[in-house]
């Protein structure tokens, strides 16, 4: 004799198969998933192609520079000229280090096909040069602002917005329609605890939800190419999120109102938790920790630059006082001040120091805002699921911070390499090309560590609503 739980679940599954709402929800969800995957893959392919093109062009330019330097040196040797002089071009540390520079780029992560996140906002590449610190990290925007504002139709969107709807469609009439049809009285006249009935129904409907979620995530990871560890975390996050909404529907259903009344309450809950609350948290974060606008940053930079250029050679004296090893290389300070390159480096240092407080304030406020959103936002499962998806896909705040840090580290290395050459006025020979620092993109973090918090939050949220459903259902009014 099978247990009543499975008897209920099995019959419920049969009833679901005959139910058109469930059928249509499933079909729409499947179609949306398929569409989202093509959108995500297209976007990733586009960005990968762009990154590779930039990388290839950069390597080509670098190799050509080296070859050209080599041929110049051969010509000089042939003419018996010493190699310690140079002209503007591939042998000039000024030209190579401060004008040509290098374009660094990071390829999109494989899973950015599933969650575009912030990836569509960031520039495809950064030009790294010495003596130009404050200019990194911005370029012309080539994606339609309308499209950016609307957001991408990626798998994360489908799971974040459509999955709750599917779960609510599966759960809003958990017992309500049986009550309205009258079968609930007949069922509860049998020796089955109401809790078992609700659990059996949830098992069947949750099972369908789980099958759809797992199918969607497996499909996503197969086409996007992600590892099993991330797949497991992603799937668990999605399941917890989906079950939260199903549990919420079950808890609301326990009030014993009509299916239509449940639908009304749940629509309001969805809008509140999924849309209004996250937006309110973002708004509040901006009000509690206001960051200066970029206009203030630009103005501060301009003022500092103008100031530095009006102070004549003072910035150089300050720079040399701070960097005695450079003073040695320079020798004659007055002669060095004639060099545009030397002055550019010195002024850049002065400007960077001057705008440091603005930059620091900016970074601090932004970090506070992010922390605020992460803590207060944890009250909304949508915010948690969103954070988990982006962290796992490597398209969230943390990964972006790491990528930018890697770029900044590289820029420091680049500066440290070329500044002494500029100060000592030594040529950048063909043989020096391989010695120049190479960029290594930030390793993609596993995302597992950051995901721990959101997963815990989601598990808690799910436990709360399922617990409510279990506690409230036996107390529901008479069928």
């Amino acid at each position, binding site marked *: *004799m099978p247990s009543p739980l499975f*008897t209920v679940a099995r019959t419920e599954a049969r009833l679901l198969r005959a139910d058109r709402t469930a059928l249509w929800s499933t079909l729409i969800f499947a179609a949306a998933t398929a569409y989202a995957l093509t959108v995500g893959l297209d976007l990733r392919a586009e960005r990968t192609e762009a990154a590779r093109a930039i990388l290839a062009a950069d390597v080509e330019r670098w190799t050509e520079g080296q070859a050209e330097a080599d041929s110049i040196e051969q010509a000089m040797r042939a003419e018996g000229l010493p190699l310690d002089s140079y002209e503007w071009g591939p042998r000039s540390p000024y030209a190579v280090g401060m004008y040509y520079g290098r374009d660094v780029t990071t390829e999109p992560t494989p899973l950015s096909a599933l969650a575009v996140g912030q990836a569509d906002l960031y520039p495809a590449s950064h030009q790294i040069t010495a003596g130009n610190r404050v200019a990194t990290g911005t370029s012309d925007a080539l994606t339609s602002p309308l499209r950016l504002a609307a957001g991408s139709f990626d798998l994360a969107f489908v799971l974040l917005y459509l999955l709750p709807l599917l779960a609510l469609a599966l759960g809003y009439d958990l017992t309500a329609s049986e009550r309205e049809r*009258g079968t609930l009285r*007949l069922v509860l006249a049998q020796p089955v605890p109401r809790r078992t009935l609700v659990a059996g129904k949830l098992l069947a409907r949750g099972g369908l939800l789980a099958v759809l979620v797992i199918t969607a995530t497996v499909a996503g990871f197969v086409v996007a190419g992600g590892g099993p560890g991330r797949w497991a975390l992603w799937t668990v996050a999605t399941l917890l999120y989906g079950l939260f909404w199903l549990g919420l529907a079950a808890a609301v259903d326990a009030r014993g109102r009509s299916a239509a009344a449940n639908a009304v309450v749940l629509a309001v809950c969805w809008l509140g938790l999924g849309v209004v609350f996250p937006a309110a948290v973002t708004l509040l974060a901006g009000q509690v920790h206001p960051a200066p606008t970029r206009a203030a940053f630009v103005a501060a930079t301009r003022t500092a630059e103008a100031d530095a250029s009006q102070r004549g050679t003072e910035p150089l004296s300050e720079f040399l006082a701070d960097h005695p090893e450079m003073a040695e290389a320079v020798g004659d300070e007055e002669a060095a001040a004639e060099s545009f390159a030397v002055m550019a480096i010195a002024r850049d240092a002065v400007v960077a120091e001057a705008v440091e407080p603005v930059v620091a304030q900016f970074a601090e406020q932004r970090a506070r805002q992010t922390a605020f959103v992460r803590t207060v936002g944890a009250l909304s499962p949508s915010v948690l699921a969103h954070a988990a998806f982006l962290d796992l896909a490597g398209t969230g705040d943390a990964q972006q911070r790491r990528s930018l840090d890697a770029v900044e580290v590289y820029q420091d290395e680049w500066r440290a390499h070329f500044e002494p050459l500029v100060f000592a006025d030594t040529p950048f020979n063909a043989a020096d090309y391989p010695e120049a620092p190479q960029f290594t993109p930030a390793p993609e973090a596993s995302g597992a560590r950051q995901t721990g918090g959101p997963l815990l939050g989601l598990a808690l949220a799910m436990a709360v609503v399922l617990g409510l459903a279990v506690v409230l259902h036996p107390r529901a009014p*008479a069928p």
Partner: protein
Amino acid sequence: MSDPILHARGLTKRFSGTTAVDALDLAIHPGEVYALLGPNGAGKTTTINLFLGFLAPDGGEALVDGLDVQAEPLETKRRLAYLPEQVALYPSLSGAENLKYFAALAGHDLTEADLAGFLDRAGLQREAHARHAGTYSKGMRQKVGIALALAKGAKALLLDEPTSGLDPSASVEFSGLVRRLAEAGAAVLMATHDLFRVKDTASRVGVLVGGRLREEVSHDALPTTDLEALYLGHVREAEAPVLS
């Protein structure tokens, strides 16, 4: 005489101020068909709900086969079969599938042959067994309910307005089924206001008005009682202004 199967002792239920069932004493024995006669709102359905454990009493107790409904909700439901006014079945399942499901919930795993047998005994035509229940008439759905009672081997039957909305021939057929179940040893509580049907089905009649059992007519007195006059008298009395 044997112990009563359906037994109410001082059973009382109040809903926000009004008393729906007022100190009801009732004892229905195996083989008896007890008709609870009363106007709408008299407390008939509330009484059934109390026996089913859908409501908790505010006073007294409802016992099924000697077990308190509140203390032993599952055990008492095992012994009960219940036919609501509208027997609702899952429209996308066949009658047999509906029966199989409800019987399984009651702990009876029925084979195809069992299902056909019970449905036959309940009088459902063979061709209807495998049809979707959405196409059934009220009478056919009731037969599935009766088949469930048979399958459960229920000791007690709770019938809520079973004959309302049935055409006369279906009504006669249903009464016959109920009588046969009683003859087989079930105790039947039938809430109704169908005076005509009570006469040829019930073995005992109670008149419930305003939640109180006004009068009981025994089996022996039944053939000679003008039920209509009795019923209307009690209703008028309850509605009449209280004279000081």
